[in-house]
């Protein structure tokens, strides 16, 4: 979940009411039970809710191939912010909403978790600047 969270341990506040009420939506960072290991809790960001069409890069390190899926009813699509090193819905598919256990809060106040960071290669930005100057 770089760069939103550090590589080492980080303490955040978790609120469990939104996921019970069905109020968790796209862009929220949530804690969910891993569909592959029920004893493990993982932190990911919700990219799409049921009915949304998701286009994702299958293997960003090696190729530019993308795939498009529609999220089935009752499920959500989660991805880590660090798409180069994240085991998420691109690997295990959409997860049922019932596996979401809580939402990281607050989402826009101190700590500013906020929106998903841009995934533009910083080397590209430097190249643009040197070309302009």
């Amino acid at each position, binding site marked *: 979940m770089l760069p939103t969270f550090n590589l080492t341990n980080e303490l955040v506040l978790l609120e469990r009411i939104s996921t019970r009420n*069905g109020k968790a939506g796209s862009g929220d960072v949530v804690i969910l*039970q*891993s*569909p*592959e*290991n*029920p*004893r493990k809790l993982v932190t990911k960001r919700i990219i799409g809710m049921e009915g949304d069409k998701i286009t994702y890069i299958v293997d960003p390190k090696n190729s530019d191939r993308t795939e498009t899926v529609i999220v*089935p*009813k*009752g*499920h959500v699509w989660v991805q880590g912010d660090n798409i180069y090193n994240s085991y998420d819905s691109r690997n295990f598919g959409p*997860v*049922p*909403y*019932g*596996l979401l256990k809580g939402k990281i809060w607050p989402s826009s106040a101190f700590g500013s978790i906020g929106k998903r960071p841009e995934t533009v290669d910083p080397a590209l930005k430097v190249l643009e600047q040197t070309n302009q100057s």
Partner: protein
Amino acid sequence: MKILLTKWSAIAKDSINRAAIVAKFLCLLHVTNTYIFSPTLVYGPSMLPTLNLTGDVLLSEYVSHRLGKVGPGDVVLVQSPENPRKMITKRVVGMEGEVVSFLVDPGHSDRSRTVVVPKGHVWIQGDNIYASNDSRNFGPIPYGLIQGKVLCRVWPLDGFGSL
């Protein structure tokens, strides 16, 4: 005046103590119902003949699934993968890694399919395969969706006992 005050403070102290006992009992009741065991009302045709159509009260416990003790043959309460607000009652047919063979459409054809249950998932089916929306329709469900295991039937009384 002073005697009246001491009398009222004695009554107040006594009522606070009684209220504390009631509050402690309600807390204990809530914790038991949510995390240990509680009676559950279930209804629907998908578990005939094990469970009645019009409704049964079952005693279900919420400890086994946290310890990983749910296995094939158990009747479990799970959160529906299609609607997270709905709880459904089905039987566990296969755990992760097991091979499950099932009839795709038992009312109309004899075609069967075989799947391997993926890691971290379970395969659930209702006992009434002709009228059950289960893993044959929505696939294997993650183990984390299991909320509890059914122990025995409590009501109606003539069906009392383990299923």
